[in-house]
């Protein structure tokens, strides 16, 4: 139903001539796109792809099983490495899921900071996607402009969380540390530079004849197919479905901001590109509003059974000392039950399904990866297109290996 042909193990994996002149080509696990490793077994007729089989699993690192053996807070560095271009979104989504399970709300300042960092992550995600995609289509300059913009953002997140790519910034019930004092000024400067780089990239790409021809009309998918294949995120919005978790079921404080959700109409790569470019502008808009409305106050939940007590209390107060000990060794203990919390990631809906049995370790931690559904539908998107269109489609689908295979 999605155009795949059952491949009996071919005798030679790279080239096999079938009876009717078609070839089986192996676009192997290590290919030049900076996307991670996916193996495409393509049945081609000349240059046209008539069937494909997508083999994944080359980055399966056992995230879900590992998290069944460690405490809830210890899972947070592992969540960084899921969608590693937008790590804050994963951290925030996971922390929200555990907090929902425990039935607690974080402080107002914590929510605003989580929104700001999530939007910074969304920016790095889209910058990396468009930059890498442009590089594969031979627009090298755009790659350098957008990666420079991403460097500015990394410098900003480094000053906040201590890590560029893997910050592990949230904890259950709060954050690791507060924003540095000059964050607002730095952020304004960074956004100015990022806007300039995006505008340069836009001038180079959006009305560029070659880029337009490579992306317009390629990798098309219809609205019904996208919904049936469980697409979410920019790929779904490019087909015309205006679904965004931030608007549909607002979490944190997204309902207090004024932002638009760009929606395409054709479901091809060019629409996905335009949706991402506009989403970057909207992300900066949200982050600026959040910075303007940022309240003062504590960032961690006051209950000592949830967040680590401050050091002055630990050294002075016996209850705080005991709470510190128990939290470090046994972890937070949510009640028995199960939750599903969805957040809007760079690629779509990132869902965390957690089942708790009352101990400090999750019984089952499941991540609903948005690009799993997208890569599952990739066969349908490249069917009937040229080999060269696969590069554009694969880049715009933004398959992130860490999220796909956990």
């Amino acid at each position, binding site marked *: 139903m999605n155009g795949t042909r*059952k491949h009996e193990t071919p005798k030679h994996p790279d080239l096999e001539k079938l009876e009717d002149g078609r070839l089986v080509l192996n676009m192997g696990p290590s290919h030049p796109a900076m996307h991670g490793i996916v193996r495409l077994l393509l049945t081609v007729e000349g240059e046209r792809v008539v069937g494909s089989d997508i083999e994944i699993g080359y980055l399966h690192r056992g995230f879900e*099983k590992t998290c069944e053996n460690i405490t809830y807070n210890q899972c947070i560095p592992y969540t960084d490495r899921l969608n590693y271009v937008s790590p804050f979104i994963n951290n925030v989504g996971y922390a929200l899921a555990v907090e929902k399970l425990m039935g607690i709300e974080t402080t107002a300042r914590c929510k605003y900071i989580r929104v700001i960092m999530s939007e910074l992550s969304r920016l790095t995600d889209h910058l990396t996607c468009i930059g890498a995609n442009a590089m594969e289509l031979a627009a090298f300059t755009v790659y350098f402009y957008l990666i420079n913009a991403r460097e500015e953002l990394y410098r900003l997140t480094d000053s906040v969380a201590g890590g560029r790519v893997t910050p592990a910034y949230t904890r259950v019930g709060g954050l690791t540390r507060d924003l540095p004092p000059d964050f607002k000024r730095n952020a304004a400067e960074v956004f100015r530079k990022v806007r300039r780089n995006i505008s340069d990239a836009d001038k180079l790409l959006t009305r560029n004849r070659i880029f337009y021809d490579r992306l317009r009309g390629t990798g098309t998918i219809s609205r019904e197919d996208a919904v049936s294949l469980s697409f979410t995120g920019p790929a779904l919005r490019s087909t015309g479905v205006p679904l965004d978790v931030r608007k*549909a079921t607002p979490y944190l404080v997204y309902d207090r901001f004024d932002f638009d959700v760009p929606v395409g109409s054709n479901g091809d790569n060019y629409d996905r590109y335009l949706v991402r470019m506009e989403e970057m502008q909207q992300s900066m808009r949200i982050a600026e509003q959040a910075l303007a409305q940022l309240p003062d106050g504590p960032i961690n939940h006051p209950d000592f059974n949830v967040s680590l007590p401050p050091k002055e209390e630990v050294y002075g107060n016996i209850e705080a000392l005991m709470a510190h000990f128990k939290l470090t060794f046994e972890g937070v203990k949510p009640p028995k039950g199960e939750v599903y919390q969805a957040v809007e990631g760079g690629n779509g809906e990132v869902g965390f*399904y957690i089942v708790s049995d009352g101990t400090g370790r999750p019984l089952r931690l499941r991540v609903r990866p948005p690009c*799993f559904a997208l890569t599952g539908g990739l066969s349908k998107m490249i069917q009937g297109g040229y080999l060269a269109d696969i590069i554009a489609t694969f880049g715009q689908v933004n398959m992130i290996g860490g999220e796909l295979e956990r």
Partner: protein
Amino acid sequence: MSSYLLDTLKARFTDAVLATHAFRGDETAVIRKEALAEAAAFLKKELGFDFLMDLTAADYLPREPRFELVCHFYSSAHNYRLRLKCPVPADDAAVDSLTPLWAGANWFEREVYDMFGIKFNGHPDLRRILMYDGFEGHPLRKDYPLKKRQPRLPHKD
């Protein structure tokens, strides 16, 4: 906790719905595995749940039935979420596939088969997706040790 959605489900599938709850606001219904395909079709066609957001499983080892298949549905028109769970016993770990209704269920079910060993009747292409061919066992089961490694296979040609 009563809600229109869960009541409709209970009214339509009286003997198949085993339990319902809405812990932390997530409405959940536990149904018999034989009724899964019919219930999913009812949700899609008559209640407007157009998205199958997630299909996964969980292993509750000492308990019998051992596995539980968990499906998350979302309705974009009504902005509503629902979770359906089916207990699956270890000795009869086979469920009807949802691929005729949602094409996206294809890969989700392959992953559940790979990680837990639950088979799906009517699935067009049920084979391993994350682990390599030749891997024995199902890693997310509770009796598979975390660090158990298997001999590395040479590159197959």
